[in-house]
């Protein structure tokens, strides 16, 4: 690893790529739509998922939130689990992108678009839940501070208010971050589309649309200067927001007196789990995109190795959190905390705990092997296992505590209802539909970042356009 870092640019761009070819490779996808049939097929499937979501939400609005399997005591279940999971993936993606941006890691170029887009659309999938999980969704705005004649304000001590503020801020920042990063690329697309139009006489509308969204970007030094400032500031906001959002979501639980929730470790654990899930998901997505669109030239083996290292390190952090929680619970010797821990490990939903252990914490250790760090398939499998495994983490934290907290009498089993599952499948459909639209119409990797990278490689910039 040490040698990898010492030679920053080596291996990040394939030897046969140059300043112009990286741009063409990427914009080709957006402009020419090379995978037309497969794209339409995938889009149709994800559209089915979205219609499922629409149907599930429509039925929920008609009949009430009781169409899910939630009950008393398990008032929060698949709804909050799904929300926390999606927002965790989103946070992880955004945090990685923003941190790498701020620390100037030059290898992020190939991944930044992917992580930023992923962060945005995962947040969109997450954003379904906070509203529809309400008993009276049409009054969702009561949780926000707005001026009204009754002089009613939210109850500021509630973590849910801050969570609502966090989500909205997060969506704004993620969207801004993504748009800023996209701007020069849109200009590139515009330029190439105009070229294409002039050459073939086709694609005028496309060129005009890209022209509009490129906001008149000319690539002047002044533009670049401002752009870099804005990008960095928003990235810094993003980092803060991810921390605030994840710890805020954790305080929603840690702020109670409930066993298994009332724990100062929880915010840290939430944050680390979110980054872990997000990076694992992004790693898997990167490898999948790489093979679909033949981006081996841009997302290289070294990128894969770096992602593998990241997963391994985060996996160790998460392992520490779990170990610390079990240790402090045992040391604390509170009978209710111990009982919740016992139920997590051996109760009706013990599958969740063991899923975390087997799917999230264990597989990353394959990356101690050099061969695994460079094997795309291993990364996809581990990435999906980890991100899926951390779904079980949210399930475990929320459902196991709620199902029985203090009084044995208030125990009641929770069963995932059909409509809850459909809603979750629908949110996955929504994610993929947005992802596919992004892939179709936007550069899948950041053209300018890749170009900047190619500039730093001696000998390749000479051929620049």
């Amino acid at each position, binding site marked *: 690893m040490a040698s990898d870092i010492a030679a920053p640019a080596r291996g990040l761009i394939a030897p046969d790529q140059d300043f112009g070819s990286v741009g063409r490779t990427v914009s080709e996808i957006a402009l020419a739509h090379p995978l037309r049939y497969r794209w339409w097929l995938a889009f149709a499937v994800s559209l089915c998922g979205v219609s499922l979501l629409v149907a599930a939400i429509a039925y929920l609005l008609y009949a009430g939130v009781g169409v899910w399997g939630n009950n008393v005591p398990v008032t929060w279940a698949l709804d909050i689990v799904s929300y926390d999971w999606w927002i965790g993936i989103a946070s992880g993606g955004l945090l990685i992108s923003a941190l790498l941006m701020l620390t100037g890691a030059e290898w992020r170029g190939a991944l930044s678009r992917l992580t930023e887009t992923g962060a945005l659309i995962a947040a969109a999938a997450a954003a379904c839940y906070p509203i529809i999980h309400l008993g*009276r969704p049409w009054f969702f705005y*009561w949780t926000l501070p707005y001026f009204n004649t009754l002089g*009613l304000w939210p109850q500021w001590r509630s973590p849910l208010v801050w969570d609502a503020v966090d989500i909205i801020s997060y969506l704004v920042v993620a969207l801004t971050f993504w748009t800023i990063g996209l701007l020069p690329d849109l200009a590139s697309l515009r330029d190439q589309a105009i070229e294409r139009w002039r050459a073939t006489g086709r694609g005028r509308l496309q060129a005009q649309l890209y022209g509009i969204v490129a906001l008149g970007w000319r690539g002047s030094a002044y533009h670049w200067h401002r752009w870099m400032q804005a990008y960095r500031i928003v990235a810094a906001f993003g980092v803060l927001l991810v921390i605030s959002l994840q710890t805020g979501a954790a305080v929603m639980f840690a702020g109670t007196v409930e066993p298994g929730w009332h724990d100062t470790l929880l915010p840290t654990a939430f944050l680390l789990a979110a980054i872990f899930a997000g990076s694992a998901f992004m790693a898997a997505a990167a490898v999948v995109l790489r093979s679909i669109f033949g981006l081996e030239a841009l997302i290289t083996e070294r990128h894969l190795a770096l992602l593998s290292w990241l997963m391994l390190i985060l996996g160790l952090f998460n392992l520490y959190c779990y170990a610390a929680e079990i240790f402090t619970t045992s040391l604390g010797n509170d009978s209710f905390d111990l009982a919740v821990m016992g139920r997590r490990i051996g109760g009706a939903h013990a599958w969740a705990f063991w899923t975390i252990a087997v799917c999230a914490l264990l597989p990353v250790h394959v990356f101690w092997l050099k061969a695994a760090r460079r094997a795309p398939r291993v990364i996809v499998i581990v990435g999906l296992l980890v991100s899926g495994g951390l779904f079980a983490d949210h399930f475990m934290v929320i459902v196991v505590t709620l199902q029985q907290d203090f009084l044995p009498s208030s125990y009641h089993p929770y069963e995932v209802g059909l409509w809850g599952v459909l809603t979750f499948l629908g949110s996955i459909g929504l994610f993929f539909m947005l992802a596919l639209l992004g892939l179709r119409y936007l550069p899948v990797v950041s053209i300018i970042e890749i170009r900047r990278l190619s500039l730093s490689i001696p000998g390749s910039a000479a051929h620049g356009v």
Partner: protein
Amino acid sequence: MTPASHDLVALRAHVDGGSGPALWRSLDALAETPAFRSFLDAEFPAAARLAAGPDRRQFLRLMAASFAMAGLAACSDTGGRSQEVAYVRDPERIVPGAPLVYASATLLDGIANGVTVLTRNGRPLKIEGNDRHPWSRGGTDIFGQASILDLYDPLRSQAVLYLSRPSSWEAFRGAVTGPFAAIKADGGNGLRLLTGPLSSPSLLAQVAALKTDFPALHWHSFDPASGGGALDGAKAAFGTALQARWRFDKARVVVAIDGDFLDPGPHQVGTSRDWADARKASASGDLLTLHAATSTPTLTSAKADDHVTLRPAELAGLPGRLQAAIGGDSPKGDDPVSLWLARAAAALAGARGAGIVLAGTDQPAAVHEAVHRLNDALGNLGQTVFFAQPAVAEAESLGALVEAMQAGAVSTLVVLGANPVYAAPGDIDFKGALAKVSLKIHAGLHADETAAYANWHLPLAHPLESWGDARAWDGTVSLMQPTIAPLYGGRSAAEILSILSEAEPRDGLALLRAHWLEGRDPARFEPFWKQALIDGIVPDTAFPAETVAMRPAGPSASAPPPAAAGTLDLLFRPDPTVRDGAFASNAWLQELPKPLTKTVWENVIAISPALAQGEDLSSGDMVAIGVGDVTLEGPVWITPGQAPDTLTLTLGYGRVLPDMLFSGYGYDAYPLRLAASPSLRPGASLRKLGRRVRIATTQDHGTLEGHDFIRLQRPGDGSAETVPRELPSFYPAKGGDGRAWGMVIDEDACIGCNACVVACQAENNIPVVGKTEVALGREMHWLRIDRYYSGLKTGAGLDDPDTHFQPVPCMHCEEAPCEVGCPVEATLHDQEGLNLMVYNRCVGTRACSSYCPYKVRHFNYLDYTSAAAPSVQQQRNPEVTVRPKGVMEKCTYCVQRIVEARIDSDKSGQPIPDGTVKTACQGACPTRAITFGDLNDQASAVRAAHGDARNYALLGELGLKPRTTYLAERAPARAEPPGKEG
């Protein structure tokens, strides 16, 4: 003013032409003569200004008035409504919105419980206790509390039916006049009357009068809920059928052989009060202890300090073994039964003349007789055990009726308020015998199974809508007043008998008055009658204790044959909530968790843990029970405390009438019952079917899991509280307006009867959600009764654990965690320490419930309220919001009652006296286990209870300062090494 001359012709034209004013006071005014104007100016300057034409301000003022008047005028549009009569005089006594309370009685098995009925705007809304009633003393039971819903039951019979087709009372009368005249001419031959159990003096007098008109009339009565031989036992012992009465206040020891004096039944309210009062009074000295032996767990065995479980055949031998043990032949062996016997015998021997041995109502006559003899031997008779007339009058049996029907001796059968087609024991073919009766008349609250086989079905009026009387368990005559006109045109049993037998049928009031007027001085009748109606009782009508003399023991009754090895005993018991099926149409009772199994909406087969283990059964497994040539399929429910090889079946379910609330729930146990021994049938076999069904239950986990949610206090123990009430806090103490509402619940007095749960449901418009929703975990009861099993008291294990009841309303924590969670401040504290719910602010995040350590909050996951039948909506308390879909709700300490008292206090300037505010649960409790009031009032009862050494907070270590606290259960001094906690 000088009269001006008028041009009458011109004036006439003026008016006819429509240009003049529509109203005029004089011809001057009409003519608008100058003289009139000047007069106007002088007399009414303001009017003159008006007549002169308005200025701007005046114009605006006028326009404002005009618009207001126009609005009023719009209201008085008479289009199509000119026939209405104005509400000129208020109906007497009805003040809109103000409650009006009538004393009345609710009926269970024909026996009265004195209650009061609270009505608002002419609608009865809530059953409350009647403090003046000498038997119920302000207490109520679940059946009484729920009877208000029966009144509004949309599925009640709503029309006279002839051959199942709608008919009318006139048609009925016309149709029966002829046949009854013929029967009368024939001396009543072939006429039979079948009723439920009757205690009503006026009805009994009517039946007696009927017998003089129809000398050959036979009167039968049928009570499916009773299956024992208490009266026959007394007859065998004393020569007369008498009911045992117990003076718990004079006793130190109670030994209950399958005792059920705390269990549901017409005796429950008064007996449990006697028990709880005596237990409380004894706590300062020797605690009144209860030793219970049962074959199936009951509320009585649950409250026992020392209990044992054994098969019915062994149980029947217990009085004899007790007698022997007291005589010095102490039982050998260290099995639980022998040990229990030794302890019970020692206790009884140590309290001669101050002990009570009693047997359950379902025990056969032989056991009752043996118990009476044992009491006699111990010198308890006349000290703690007394005998008095039973409340219910004796009549011929159902078996005799069916025999006569089969013999063709019955041509006309009148069934009043009984449902024998459904509830007859399996060996009495009532339905078959009905075919031989030519005229069958059935009157009932519902068009039930028997109605389907009758020629005529008559809708019976609900007790809350008819005049009547009935005796309470102690004999006290309780009067029933109608609180509303019959909703569905029903008539009372007395009115129906009057139609059948009298030339001019009389109404209920006339019949009742006539009965009570008889033998009284008419001049002094009115004051007596008025006071009796106000109090709801006829004073001094309780049956006095009779002097009894023990008859020599006859040939010792043959002990029941020992159970054949490998076979099972079947016990039949009325269902704890729907009883014999009479309450099956009541949704509150269907959804009320059965006190011990906590199941709802169906009956289960209680099976002992040992037998379930042996047969590899778990709760919900379907089994087939075969006995004789009858088989029954039902789900088993593992019930700790159930005797091995004994199954308990409850009655009242398995009905298949279409379109009824109860259709399709549970199994029907009646076909397995035998007339001779209705509560026990040995020789059954059990077969696992391999199917499972989902039983809806409100409490899946019943052990304490090592925690101290339930605490015991034995003599000499210190405070039950283990954590200081004031834990250190970063936050300043909250201020208030001086009041601090709080509740203390005495676990020692709580018998788990559920009356509070139903009362809460009635008071607070709590919806019924149905079996599916309960199975999902969405029941809405604001107050639940947790039932825990432990070994705290006796150290007993799984097969026969100690049982504890803990009612759990909202704790109204001073540091309420729910309030922190709510993002919209829909749940918050008021200045008197109430944790309030603002329904219309709630958005339904459910954070409050997630944050609540007691899980007392309930969420409207679906729309549970708007689909209720219109008649059921009539029952709703107008003082309490009906909650829509998506809103959280929970116990409010009956805030509407607090507010009412607060308003009165604010108006009068006086503080709220202690005891003014009674929560619904508190008022319903027959044992007075719940105390509520102002904790800041130094003299209040709740403050005193709070200071009791038994007081402790549930989960007090969380530092939430709950306002609801508990008084630990009492337990006698430990006689042996402590057992392990279960």
